[in-house]
């Protein structure tokens, strides 16, 4: 038993960077839950927490790739606000249905992002400057198209993206069956792929954790996931926002870990010169990453507009900083080449949990900003320290 425990601790120590943010998230949730006498982990608050994380989470996912290739995008908040307003106008004034608006606005996002990428890659202007300019420009554009007024979407389906929940297959009072089923299928799928990957690795003679550690981790993850699935199921079930964020994270996770494009992005981040010499066009990757970033900013704008059922001239203010903070808290390295989209999702959840928790505790806004600032610095200090630790070994 002792040796098993030992293995667990060494395993934990060597992967502390990967697990750090999960522990932080768990700790934060636990603290707020105790301080709020359980209110924080109530189904309603949890569901709301995930919805309010949504529009930042999609930005944090895109920002992950931008930071991985050693750039930054400060324009995404203003762009999200602007394109959210464009979406609201297309809905209320033009009368387009939502399934046309979403792809259309995202296409506009891609075009704007490619423009950023062009100026950064081809003209050689630092991304900080280009996107700072974009931040100013699109803030102005937002005020211009909205005439400083709030634009209502005037469409129930549109608003449902930010507030609605998926329908259920059968009606049981106080329990969302479909959500629960999706959760169960998800966990089974997770366990299946974990076991399959482990077997593959063993076949190729790669290092795998012992059975005990492997099972321990798997059970832990499954229990935690099922806990949250249950909580949501007894409320109103999965929201459309959660579904959309889930799809975005899944797609980006797959692209970054399994495709040629993903490998090339991380190679460019790890060493741009070596990547270029390896036959990878750094310019092309820059285009793609900035294009994807602004596409997600468009989606973020739609989610936020739907949540508020309207687009305001101040919409999207400081979103970029929340997204950047989420990415850093989630373990993305400023040195480039390192960072996972799943980590950034957790990072965004950490930052949102702080806000939500402090709101519940009636902490004043002034203290909220200060505390979030300190947490951001603490997260990056942790990241830097654990990275050095690894080097010394």
């Amino acid at each position, binding site marked *: 038993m002792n040796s098993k425990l030992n293995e667990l601790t060494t395993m934990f120590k060597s992967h502390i960077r990967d697990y750090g943010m999960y522990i932080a998230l768990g700790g934060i949730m636990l603290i707020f839950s105790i301080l709020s006498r359980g209110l924080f982990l109530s189904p309603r608050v949890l569901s709301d927490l995930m919805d309010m994380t949504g529009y930042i989470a999609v930005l944090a996912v895109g920002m992950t790739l931008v930071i991985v290739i050693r750039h930054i995008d400060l324009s995404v908040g203003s762009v999200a606000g602007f394109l959210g307003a464009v979406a609201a106008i297309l809905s209320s004034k033009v009368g387009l249905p939502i399934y046309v608006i979403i792809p259309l606005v995202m296409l506009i996002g891609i075009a704007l992002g490619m423009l950023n990428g062009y100026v950064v890659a081809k003209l050689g202007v630092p991304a900080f400057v280009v996107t700072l300019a974009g931040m100013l420009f699109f803030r102005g554009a937002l005020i211009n198209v909205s005439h400083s007024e709030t634009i209502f979407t005037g469409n129930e389906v549109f608003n449902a993206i930010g507030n609605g929940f998926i329908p259920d297959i059968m009606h049981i009072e106080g329990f969302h069956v479909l959500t629960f089923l999706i959760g169960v299928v998800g966990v089974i799928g997770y366990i299946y792929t974990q076991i399959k990957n482990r077997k*593959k690795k063993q076949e*190729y*003679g*790669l*290092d795998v954790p012992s059975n005990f550690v492997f099972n321990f981790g798997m059970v832990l993850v499954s229990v935690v996931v099922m806990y949250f699935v249950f909580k949501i199921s007894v409320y109103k079930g999965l929201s459309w926002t959660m579904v959309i964020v889930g799809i975005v994270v899944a797609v980006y996770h797959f692209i970054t870990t*399994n*495709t*040629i*494009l993903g*490998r*090339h992005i*991380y*190679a460019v981040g*790890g*060493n741009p*010169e*070596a*990547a*270029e*010499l*390896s*036959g*990878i*066009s750094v310019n092309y990757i820059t285009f793609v990453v900035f294009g994807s970033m602004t596409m997600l900013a468009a989606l973020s704008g739609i989610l936020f507009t739907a949540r508020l059922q309207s687009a305001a001239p101040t919409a999207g203010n400081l979103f970029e900083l929340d997204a950047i903070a989420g990415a850093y808290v989630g373990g993305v390295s400023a040195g480039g*080449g*390192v960072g996972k989209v799943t980590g950034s999702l957790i990072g965004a959840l950490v930052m949102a949990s702080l806000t939500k928790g402090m709101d519940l505790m009636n902490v004043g806004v002034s203290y909220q900003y200060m505390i979030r600032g300190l947490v951001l610095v603490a997260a990056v200090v942790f990241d830097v320290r654990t990275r050095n630790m690894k080097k010394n070994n």
Partner: protein
Amino acid sequence: MTDNILEMRNITKEFPGVKALDNVNFTVKRGEIHCLVGENGAGKSTLMKVLGGVYSYGNYEGDIVFNDEVMRFARINDSENQGISIIYQELALIPYMSVYENIYLGHEIHKNKIINWNETRNQAKKMLEKVKLDVNPDVKIKDLGVGKQQLVEIAKALSKDVSLLILDEPTSALNEDDSENLLELIMELKNLGVTCIMISHKLKEVTAIADTVTVLRDGQTICSLYKEKEEIIEKDIIKYMVGREIDDIFPKIEVEKSDEIKLEVKNLTSYDRKLARNVVKNVDFKIHKGEIVGIAGIMGAGRTEFAHSIFGNYKNYDITGEIYINNELVKIPTTKDAIAKGLAYVSEDRKGNGLILIDDIKQNITISNLKSIAEKLVVNKNEEIKVVNEFVKSLSIKTPSIEQEVNNLSGGNQQKVAIAKWLFVEPQILILDEPTRGIDVGAKYEIYTIMNKLVESGLSVIMISSELPEVLGMSDRIYVMAEGKMTGVLDANEATQEKIMKMATL
């Protein structure tokens, strides 16, 4: 005071795994011009860094005696305060500052920390007169040519009351006129009482101005030659520089000669916009199937630039000339095209642009050719593990796991990973740029063996190397480059170190 301004006694300096200096003794007489020569890696620059305080006291063994006193420099400033000034190959001027600001940068003329600009300008003018540089001190450094920048550096040294001036290959970036100018100036400084140590590869210059020549080889002092005793001639210097015995460390095998030309380059010239000069000049080159062709030359001769020019021009030179692969005229605008045309390039700078250090062995080996193990753009990770395992086995890369970060591997194993990466693209022509730099003898041998296997299987290998024994030991034919030009081509059996050095040093 004795005649000797400087005595370095029994200096030993070790880097992890390498003894860069091994009991070096180096004595400089007051008022002389002393040239320090030796092959790349002989320890010249290291010795000067010890002298200048770059490697502080305690990081080397032995004594530095300057003006009859034992010196213990903790940092560069300490040696400068004693009147020792080093001018490095890469000039240390700030391009966007004016000439006079640069001259007094770091030892400003000030009163209560407030700079007296008028006095600075006046003094700077006097220093410029001393080095006979006729430029307005208000001009920005970036607007001066390299030759004039070099003179500004010397003016800067003079402004610090230098008594021992050290120049590290001062003429390597200069054209002939500027070189001559500089050498004249060094002679004049001697009359002003400044002692001068010059590191140089250009033996013509050395024999022209040196009072004493000291030869280093493999971190040891080989000998010193004195002009007052006998005439210093190039042939002697070369003999001492390369004088090591070549034993059987090169397992060269004979591959049947083929007439099939794989790659031919005609009249290639590459202009570097940043340096504003041609880095490759009218180069003709060819390599046959199954041939190992060495490219020899000193650092900065344009060999790597030549390789970059063929391999997709990643430094964005302006290139003229023709490249033929398999007798077909080709254009290779990007590295991707180069790979598609069957070229591969193992960089001289493993850590800088050869490998992605934070990635593991697996990711590094497959990065250039992921599509070969992908289905519809999705990487087949099982296939990847399979091919990487094969490379680890066939090149005997020593590692606990293929998921090991490349950062943690030894130099030799890193180099094997770099070679594996390029073999994975299945090239026809493999360019190896300094393939054995910084790796130990055993790993060198393994790399030579790999080269043998490759030519046996029909590849053509271009080996750029600064190590002459290696070039002589492994090549079928040897090209020699100097100052961007191909100065000669030799068959392996007629080549000698002396012949190559002669061509390489013009």
